[in-house]
């Protein structure tokens, strides 16, 4: 049994007097214990909404979540709020992009870490703080004893993100969801945090869902990568397979449009034309069709299905980039 099995997860936002908007459209993916899975896509592709839906953190009103989120066989979407709260932070936890806005500014860092241990593991404050100190030490915060009584504004962005990771990993969860954990950080700090995450995940056997727009981050970290476009998974492949032979025109376009540090200079970038606002609804055809170089008639006749590929991945495309061209 998979650790996490997301089946046909859809999130539709509804506002009175407006057309319903499908942010996540029948997304399915699985995470095995100890595995690192990437969800990649640009803004508006539904990657963050997917993670919030899994964690049960979407607002109660104004949206409709359907499908199944099976965590060790239990459907998280059907749990009572109290039961979900017991699991959140203990079995599944999450780290967010901006550590300053996800930490409470008026509570000392030590208390914020200890809180999780008190809530989920019944520790008293004293014992919890002692453990919090060890946790801060484990995530590489210098002089953890002093940090316990300090407030988030007193430490730097990288240190805040470390504190957030300490909170998320305090109860040794089996699944950690990281939503753009390094986007707000500088590259040298990003390298520190990614190395730390990789090491912690290896040491504790925690499975990791990495949500990011940065293909470089995925390349070094994830076992399996799901590429999202317009709320649907358009390509799924093992890490090496995806980067060596991206078959979906969107994935292929993304990979050839990023300037790489090690690519020969002066080469023109292959930009994907248009923007996300050109998308057509999936009900009509492939959402990417208006921007796609490989578009064929079938693309505008209906949504292409997600089909398994010969290399063990999945692909949603009528006219994929051919194997020869796909080698970057």
């Amino acid at each position, binding site marked *: 049994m998979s650790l996490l099995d997301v089946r046909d997860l859809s999130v539709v936002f509804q506002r009175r007097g407006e057309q319903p908007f499908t942010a996540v459209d029948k997304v399915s993916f699985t995470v095995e214990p100890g595995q690192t899975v990437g969800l990649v896509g*640009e*803004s508006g592709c539904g990657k963050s909404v997917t993670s919030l839906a899994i964690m049960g953190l979407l607002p109660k009103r104004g949206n409709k979540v359907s499908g199944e989120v099976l965590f060790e066989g239990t459907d998280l979407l059907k749990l009572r709020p109290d039961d979900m709260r017991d699991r959140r932070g203990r079995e599944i936890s999450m780290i967010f992009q901006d550590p300053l806005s996800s930490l409470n500014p008026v509570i000392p860092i030590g*208390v914020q870490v200890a809180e999780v241990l008190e809530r989920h593991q019944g520790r008293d404050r*004293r014992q919890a*703080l*002692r453990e919090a*100190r060890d946790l801060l030490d484990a995530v*590489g915060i*210098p002089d953890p*004893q*002093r940090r*316990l*009584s*300090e407030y988030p*504004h*007193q*430490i*730097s*962005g*990288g*240190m805040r993100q470390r504190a957030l990771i300490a909170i998320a990993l305090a109860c040794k969860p089996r699944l950690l969801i990281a939503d753009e954990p390094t986007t707000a950080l*500088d*590259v*040298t*700090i*990003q*390298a*520190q945090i990614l*190395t730390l995450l990789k090491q912690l995940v290896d040491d504790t056997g925690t499975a990791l869902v990495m949500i990011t*727009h*940065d*293909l*470089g*981050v*995925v*390349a*070094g970290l994830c076992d399996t990568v799901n590429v999202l476009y317009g709320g649907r998974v358009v390509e799924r492949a093992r*890490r*090496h397979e995806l*980067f*060596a032979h991206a078959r979906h025109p969107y994935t292929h376009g*993304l*990979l050839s*449009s*990023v*300037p*790489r*540090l*090690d*690519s020969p*200079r002066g080469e*023109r*970038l*292959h*930009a*994907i*034309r248009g*923007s*996300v*606002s050109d998308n057509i609804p999936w009900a009509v055809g492939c959402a990417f069709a208006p921007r796609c170089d490989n578009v064929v008639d079938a693309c505008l006749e209906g949504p292409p299905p997600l089909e398994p590929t010969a290399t063990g991945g999945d692909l949603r495309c009528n006219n994929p980039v051919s194997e020869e061209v796909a080698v970057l």
Partner: protein
Amino acid sequence: MTEQTGPLVELRDIKVHFPIKSGLLFDRTVGYVYAVDGVSLSIRKGETYGLVGESGCGKSTLGRGLLRLVEPTDGEIIFDGTDVRSLKGEAMRQARRRMQMIFQDPLSSLDPRQSVESLLMEGLKAHGLAGEKDETNRRLRETLEAVGLPASALSKYPHEFSGGQRQRIGIARALVLNPELIVADEPVSALDVSIQAQVLNLLEDLQNERGLTYLIIAHDLAVVRHIADTVGVMYLGGLVEEASSDDLYREPMHPYTRALMSAVPVPDPLVEDRRERILLAGDLPSPTNPPSGCRFHTRCPWAQPTRCADERPALRDVVGGHRVACHFAEDIAAGRIRPHEVEVELVRPTEGTGPVDPPGELIPTP
């Protein structure tokens, strides 16, 4: 790119220090933020100069200082033979037409209540270039065409465009005045990857057509390497290394550049699995209280007990135009100095701006 002649812009020992004020009745200056602390560089005509560095290194302040959007504390800015800092009033205003700026966030740098036409006309009017109606109209249309927007965009407002198109409007606004130098501060960092490529290609095309000179300021090393001819790397208010884009990538010589390069993720698992990371310890020290000597010595894995802590290295030509500010650049390149472990020093975001309360005890020390 285009013909490369003498320097269009020369910065000589530019300093931008911001005072930190404190006190109830009198604004007492209690210290300075040394945002830019002695930078000299020159940009040739038709060249793209890329300035990279992490947040807080002073790269944006340097770009703004060049245009005198913030007044430099000290130093000279020579633009096409004249010292810009000595210009006053009308002369300065006229000089501004020749150097324009593109900002990072197109949504906040475009007035939401102005139509595209009025945004573009504003600069023309200010510089007395809005003459006959037909002529002006033609100029606006040509500019829009150059940045890849339809003429119908003129009557629209910024919110009606996507992020990439808004950045195109920002570029058009700079371009309509026919400038010689464009300072672009993080022109693509607010855009999605697929849109980034469009804007970068556009900037290159415009340079080829019009012979523009660019100063591109960005934190993304890959973007800068792609677009720039010469790259300068900044750390804590100073330039630590400067070389042609290819040289810098082939052989980064300053320890900071090496670490920076090794930290940039490459979208290729084969590269990622093989490469060695130089992980820097800790954070960027506070620019209010920069370390003595070499600014980087507190985090440098190659730091030596002599010189590094007490003598600030000058930017010197090491090999063929490759300038490095490191006492031991040659020794590091030749492998005579090995990297060592660095103790993490805690950096406080509030350092130097006021007294820091001693932390209370939450639990007794064991």
